[in-house]
């Protein structure tokens, strides 16, 4: 059932930009159109390309924000989320914790 909803309505998560738009709803209470506009501006793309795999795949790889297929050695997990936080200008709590645990304190 979840997959049916994902196919019917979902932005596509890390296949495209769904995770990025979700962060804006979660951290800034943005409605969907506002969140999409914000993310598109940060990415420097048209809103229609937010769910365009052809554009988002390369962009995600270049920005180091995680890709859906596994590229050996490329950022995933907390390293990708750190880049997401910087890209969007938002505070991601797991990233803040991770930074606080580094000996150089994330600077």
């Amino acid at each position: 059932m979840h997959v049916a909803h994902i196919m019917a309505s979902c932005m596509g998560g890390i296949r495209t930009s769904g995770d990025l738009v979700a962060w804006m709803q979660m951290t800034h209470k943005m409605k969907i159109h506002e969140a999409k506009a914000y993310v598109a501006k940060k990415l420097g793309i048209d809103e229609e390309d937010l769910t365009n795999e052809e554009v988002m795949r390369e962009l995600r790889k270049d920005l180091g924000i995680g890709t859906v297929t596994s590229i050996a050695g490329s950022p995933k997990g907390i390293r990708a989320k750190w880049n997401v936080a910087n890209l969007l200008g938002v505070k991601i709590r797991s990233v803040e914790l991770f930074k606080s645990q580094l000996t150089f304190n994330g600077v």
Partner: protein
Amino acid sequence: MSGKIITRMGDGERVLLTRSEIKKDIEEGTKDAAERAHIPPMTPEEQKQLLEIIADPSRVVSVERGQEVIVTDDGCSMSFYSGQDGGGVGAPLSRMQAVLVYERACGADTTSLGHSDYSYKPVKPIINFEMNDYYNISMVSTAPFFYGAQPNMGLYYQPDGPCENPAELFSAGKIDEARAAQEEALQYLKEDLVFVAKKLSEVGCEGINFDTSGSAGDAEFLATLEAVAELKKTIPDLPILMGSSGEFILGMHGELKYEDKQLAGMYPHDQVKVVESAGADIFGLAVSTNTSKSVPWNLARAVTFLKHAVSVAKIPIHANVGMGVCGVPMMEQPPIDSVSRVSKALVQIGKADGL
């Protein structure tokens, strides 16, 4: 069969209806919601759009390009490894593996972790286990990662909990005692919700989901609102998704208020305003599916409640679309023809910010 359209009943049974029968069900569904909540019904144009979505000959339908929304979840990754009673497929995956499969193989916008019981009370004694799992998974997951469960205040009543059982007190005519028991239980619940969320926030929790709030009535909804407000005071950067359990808050107590607003009897457009006021970041809207009515009837009803709530809300609204909610048939294995139509209609006509 000629001229008839395949659709479903609220229990999933496949039925063949004519266009005029579906049109009538849509009219009656939206009228029911509008009359109950004193809100506008769907316009004739919206009803026509819904009819076309239902009548689409494709088995699976989807939103138009560019209208995609965020899909959050209520423990979907648990469905990979849990059993039948949790809608699970029983694949032998660890919790971490399930979350990563959901994120990477399914392309989910967000993922989540939850206790198998999916209630907050049983999390308390094992909070350190949950903190460890949450922390470990959050280090390797890329999409936003929630911790979710239901407030489920029923667990605080005897024989499962410390408080007297209101259902027994009501049936004995002890109305004041039944109300007092609920007031006692809501304090325990609130403390547990705050405790669990605070502990998880210590390990970098990215978001908390208080899912299906109010299933035990207005006292449970109040406990959750108060927990959200307290958490937002002490941990303002903790994202909180608060979902409801139905279109109507049950008045099991009947006299409880949040900021001078009576909770019993609240419909979604009022529910979202108190959730917003408490400080939650996303509201999960729920409308119960009537199993003896058709999917068009149920969907028209859900769209009507949703559209009006979205129009008054300042925070994003995600329509809850699990089994038996917002028009999804109430069955263990909801048919994807209905699920995808519910998905499309709630987004395109109901204007949901997410599901």
